């Protein structure tokens, strides 16, 4: 039986909170109870009780949801799966299991130590697998091995049928293949409670990785040099970065606000065979930035999206660039826990290099100051993308439609005080609106990276409620094709009462009744 955490319980206050301290938005939005579920049977029973009582269930694995989808649930109940962490269950056979409540750092440790395999998932240790994988799940090995959902063979999910009964089901390519596809990328909180993912096979991680980077001083930065940095970076991923021998290279260009003093890029590299014997690719990549005059005294910066934040731990490599060699497991699980703060995020998939105007716009907003608002902790992180992700044959098998992009942008801001909310949120909205109101965005879609020649929309795991202002928001996240109507059909079939919903969940098709 699930542990019921009600208002009298000393754990209640803590467990009503999100990692994003903006939520719950107000005392009126707080849930009535939290149900801590250790296994699928407990999920079935707890979900049934919640539904029978007419309350709304929301689902939490790691608690990292960027928006208010989980903890803003007035009078409702959170089904908290953070203690649902089994590594193997009867009936799994030889398949690997990742339970929904397991955090990514523990997943990496567990899979590596037990089996010598891994998933190409995210960098933050404490992100829960349940939500992360349901939205796609990508990270430093994704250019090499694709998305985590690309490897999923089956999903265990508890759904509410037409008769209102909670039923646990295992879905795969043969059993309920439509729901299986929907669980591979559509995002959390849509169709039911995912309790676990099963994998027939998983990739082997590299033994070692190379870490490194370069940084730039905002005090000496000029607009032209900033443009050069962005275009040099983007040019690589649109050309050389498509070659298979570079797929082991993953980089984040972390464009921090000028208040932070510096910005830079960090990288992780291995050869496609998982070794680090040949560093030609990484040296060639860093060579391209020599003309941009990176700071020699600070080869890398630290920050929320910096790869291997403990860098320069590890063994220095010989050569002109400051690179270190580390065990992959150490590089993957150390120092990436993240801490709670107030936060806001946006995202963009890019199919093409930055234009000079885009670079100018980003430069302008990173230099912009707001009286009384400290904009340190505000940034645009430009992740390398593509490679093994862009296997278009997976389009009909998964619910990830972005298979043509070479960069993925994450707009982020982290702060402590609620008094700064307006300034922080406004800064990011202004940047985004400005950046995507240009000649590469068709006028009807101004203000958004609408899918087209230049952009490929947004990432559902980086949800942004500001996009709800646009009636075409589903197309930003799921494309213009058959995917969103397909997901609506899945919603109708497997959650006919729309028990599972949040502000950006797949919406039932409207019927005239």
């Amino acid at each position: 039986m699930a542990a019921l955490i009600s208002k009298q319980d000393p754990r209640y206050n803590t467990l009503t909170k999100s990692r994003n301290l903006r939520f719950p938005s107000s005392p009126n939005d707080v849930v009535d109870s939290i149900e801590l579920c250790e296994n699928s049977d407990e999920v079935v029973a707890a979900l049934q009780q919640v539904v029978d009582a007419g309350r709304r269930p929301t689902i939490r694995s790691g608690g990292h949801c960027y928006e208010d989808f989980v903890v803003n649930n007035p009078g409702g109940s959170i089904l908290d799966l953070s203690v649902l962490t089994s590594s193997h269950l009867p009936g799994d056979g030889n398949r690997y299991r990742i339970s929904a409540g397991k955090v990514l750092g523990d997943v990496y440790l567990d899979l590596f130590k037990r089996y010598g395999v891994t998933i190409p998932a995210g960098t933050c240790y404490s992100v829960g697998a349940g939500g992360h994988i349901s939205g796609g799940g990508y990270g430093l090995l994704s250019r090499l091995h694709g998305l985590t959902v690309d490897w999923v063979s089956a999903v265990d999910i508890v759904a509410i049928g037409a008769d209102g009964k909670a039923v646990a089901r295992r879905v795969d390519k043969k059993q309920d293949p439509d729901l299986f596809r929907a669980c591979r990328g559509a995002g959390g909180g849509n169709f039911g409670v995912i309790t676990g993912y099963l994998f027939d096979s998983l990739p082997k991680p590299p033994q070692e990785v190379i870490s490194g980077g370069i940084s730039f001083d905002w005090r000496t930065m000029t607009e032209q040099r900033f443009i050069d940095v962005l275009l040099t970076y983007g040019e690589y991923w649109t050309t050389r970065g498509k070659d298979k021998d570079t797929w082991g290279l993953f980089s984040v260009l972390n464009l921090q606000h000028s208040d932070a003093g510096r910005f830079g890029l960090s990288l992780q590299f291995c050869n496609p065979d998982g070794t680090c014997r040949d560093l030609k690719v990484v040296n060639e990549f860093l060579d391209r930035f020599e003309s941009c005059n990176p700071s020699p005294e600070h080869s890398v910066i630290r920050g929320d999206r910096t790869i291997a934040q403990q860098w320069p731990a590890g063994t220095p490599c010989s050569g002109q660039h400051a690179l270190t060699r580390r065990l992959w497991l150490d590089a993957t699980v150390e120092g990436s826990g993240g801490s709670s703060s107030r936060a806001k995020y946006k995202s963009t998939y890019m199919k093409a290099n930055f234009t000079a105007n885009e670079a100018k716009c980003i430069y302008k907003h990173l230099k912009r100051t707001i009286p009384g608002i400290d904009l340190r902790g505000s940034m645009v992180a430009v992740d390398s993308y593509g490679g093994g992700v862009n296997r278009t044959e997976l389009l009909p098998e998964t619910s990830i439609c972005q298979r043509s992009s070479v960069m993925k942008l994450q707009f982020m801001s982290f702060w402590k005080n609620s008094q700064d909310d307006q300034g922080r949120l406004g800064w990011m909205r202004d940047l985004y609106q400005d950046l995507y109101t240009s000649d590469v965005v068709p006028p009807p879609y101004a203000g958004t990276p609408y899918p087209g020649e230049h952009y490929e929309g947004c990432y559902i795991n980086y949800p942004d409620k500001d996009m709800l202002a646009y009636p075409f928001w589903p197309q930003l996240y799921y494309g213009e094709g058959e995917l969103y109507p397909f997901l609506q059909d899945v919603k109708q079939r497997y959650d006919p009462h729309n028990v599972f919903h949040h502000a950006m969940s797949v919406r039932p098709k409207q019927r005239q009744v």
Partner: protein
Amino acid sequence: MRFPYLSRRAFLRGATAICASASLPMTGKELSPSVEYVGTADSIDVYRREAGHKRKVQSLASQHPSSITLDVTRKYLFAVNEIAEFQGLPTGSVESYEIEPISGHLGLISRVPLSLSATMPRQLAFSPDRRFLVVAVHGGGLYNVLPVSANGEIGGVTQILKEIGYSINGHRQSSAHPHSVAFHPSGKFLFGTDEGADRINVFRIDDGYMTCVHRVCTVPGSGPAGLAIDSSGSRLCVEHAFSTAKAQYLFDPGSGLLT
């Protein structure tokens, strides 16, 4: 059966149809003319009837006000907006208006969103103690409770009660569709028809909190819809969406049972 004049509404479906109305006879010095409020597809219109003639005196923009109801003190009017999306969210909304005592003209006080998934709300009822509204949400299959302050301002949703159910009439009854709500005169009970699940529900009301205490199943496929209760609170009349039949029920406030 005598229907309280403020509870009687006509529901006509269609893009431009008049979908809700309520009339307000003036009292005292304003006895001679009467005022009528009519919801259309995109407005609430105010009509005055004088010397046998009816004329429109005001029209306020309002999105699909499918149900409007008047405060018993005639100070406020409430409307529910039967829409699928409000402020980008999948929900409907409710509005409150102040009634100008002499002219009967309306002035908007507040408009607030319903809960997530409270799409296409159909009808609302104002509690006899004038403290809260209950909204029957047809599309999302649920009820919302919202507080109303003494100045007529509607507060945020305080209770969401999701219904699960279905019946035999194809996609029109593939899930619960609360249609109408009406308070028992005591304010201790609320009745709700569910067009999708072929049910009439009795809710006990405790300090603005709804708890279902009894359900009556109607003829399968009938779709109970319109609802009215007599002034004694003992008799309930129900119209049906998919049947011309009207049904009457007796209510025992002692047991909370409907027969």
